[in-house]
């Protein structure tokens, strides 16, 4: 199979209420990715974006993002999922043999839409939506409680992940200022307002404003563009059923299957020893633990025992993860960019030592219904 590399990237600083127009922010992200790779608009052959009509407050929301997204008189289409899903689409466009440079960008501005209201539009209109008991809020509580009950996990053990990621975010200059807290304690997390018991506000990856972009190129072009290509060596994708009452929320079957698919493609038998760092899209602190267990990095119910600090046994989310800022449609894309930074040694201030293989994930849906996992490798 043709090899495809990530050859450039850029992410704007995350804000809870950015002093940008929507399209200014997109342009800064996409133009910055081109500058990062030393490329120009004329080099782009295809663009894949990730946006959401409900978040943008307009239908066919990519019709207005043509110029800032680099799609002017170019081939462009949109994935209405996470930016990490748009990367898969961009990867396929390059693998078709028809494209030399794909731009993939994604993002949204939470300051411009009513976050909880738009999530109600995810629910089944013929059954759950009229009574609104299923929502982004209650589903978070169900997922965390299911995990705690199944394995006898305490809220303290889960709060540890929120502390780790919010502390890691301090060293990431692009993280959301509100998420950066060098002095945060377990007590702060546990005693923050209840979001949906047992989930507290500081365990939630706060939706915010942000856009990110990366560039994909086939092997021949990639080697011309950069001395530090990061190869996509595996990708896996799976999804579970929509109804929460059908699912085992204590685990993530879809992440398990996505992991198997990606690891098989990349020749990974033991992720714990073969992967150097993980950047996972945890919409809530407990999801990080559920994911590392579903990926076989920790045993079921033992995720909290893993030392996932930057200098630990298996670093997870050294950038702060989604808890460091959650611009919907960009969050998974940012995880991939952060994994690229780790491989290229460009994660200044939060660099993990000797990284050559990394994994990164994106997700969409309530209780991470749909998960996508990438294996990324450097040349070393």
């Amino acid at each position: 199979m043709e090899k495809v590399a990530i050859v450039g990237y850029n992410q704007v600083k995350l804000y809870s209420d950015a002093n940008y127009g929507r399209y200014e922010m997109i342009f800064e992200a996409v133009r910055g990715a081109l500058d990062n790779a030393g490329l120009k608009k004329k080099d782009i052959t295809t663009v894949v974006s990730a946006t959401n009509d409900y978040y943008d407050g307009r239908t066919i929301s990519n019709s207005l993002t043509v110029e800032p997204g680099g799609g002017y008189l170019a081939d462009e289409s949109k994935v209405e999922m996470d930016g990490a899903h748009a990367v898969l689409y961009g990867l396929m466009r390059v693998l078709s043999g028809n494209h030399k440079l794909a731009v993939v960008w994604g993002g949204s501005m939470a300051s411009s839409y009513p976050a909880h209201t738009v999530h109600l539009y995810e629910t089944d209109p013929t059954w759950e939506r009229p009574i609104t008991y299923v929502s982004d809020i209650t589903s978070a509580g169900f997922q965390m409680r299911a995990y705690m009950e199944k394995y006898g996990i305490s809220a303290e053990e889960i709060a540890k992940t929120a502390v780790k990621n919010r502390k890691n975010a301090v060293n990431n200059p692009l993280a959301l200022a509100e998420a950066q807290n060098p002095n945060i304690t377990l007590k702060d997390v546990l005693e923050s307002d209840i979001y949906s018991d047992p989930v507290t506000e500081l365990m939630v990856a706060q939706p915010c404003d942000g856009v990110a972009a990366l560039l994909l190129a086939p092997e021949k072009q990639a080697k011309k563009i950069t001395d530090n290509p990061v190869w996509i060596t595996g990708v896996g994708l799976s999804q579970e059923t929509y109804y929460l009452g059908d699912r085992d929320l204590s685990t993530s079957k879809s992440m398990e299957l996505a992991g198997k698919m990606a690891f098989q493609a990349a020749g990974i038998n033991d992720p714990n020893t073969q992967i150097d760092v993980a950047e996972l899209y945890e919409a809530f602190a407990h999801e990080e633990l559920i994911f590392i267990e579903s990926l076989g990095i920790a045993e079921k119910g033992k995720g909290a025992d893993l030392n996932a600090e930057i200098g630990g046994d298996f670093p997870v989310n050294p950038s702060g993860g989604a808890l460091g800022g959650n611009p919907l449609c960009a969050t998974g894309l940012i995880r991939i960019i952060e994994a690229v930074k780790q491989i290229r040694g460009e994660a200044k201030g939060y660099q993990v030592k000797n990284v050559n293989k990394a994994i990164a994930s994106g997700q969409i849906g309530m209780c991470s219904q749909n998960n996508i996992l990438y294996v990324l490798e450097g040349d070393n």
Partner: protein
Amino acid sequence: MTEEKIVVANKGIIRAEFAFWVGQYMDKFYDALENKKIVGNKCPKCGDVFVPPRKICGKCNETIPLDQNWVDLPDTGILKNYTITYYKINDRASRKVKKPQIIGMVQIDGSSTSIVYRLLNIEPGEVKIGMKVKVNWEEATKGDPSDIKGFSKA
């Protein structure tokens, strides 16, 4: 720098009224709710019983015929999961409120899946996974999801 200006605050400029036909299976379910009864249907292959009923068993990729495999179920069940929130979740703006709501996942006895409803007359301190609960019916039913007011201790 000038002050931030919001030109379009989209408050009620567009009001889109959607109308979703619930389908033949949910139609039977809502007719039953109107009569304060719960019905489900059973996958002919794996035997899972669905509440509400479905045309398709997703796991088996099988059609459940409309005229077969209906199961009459009681209005009692087991609490499988719950959450407590101070967000007024049945208000579309999700504002915070003083008194928390307890939302439960309830497996109706004889079914294989859980449904999500409010728990009534149960204090946060006494809610427990595995407890037996029963439907509290609205007095005047309408044949829609609100006919089940919630669940209380059985």
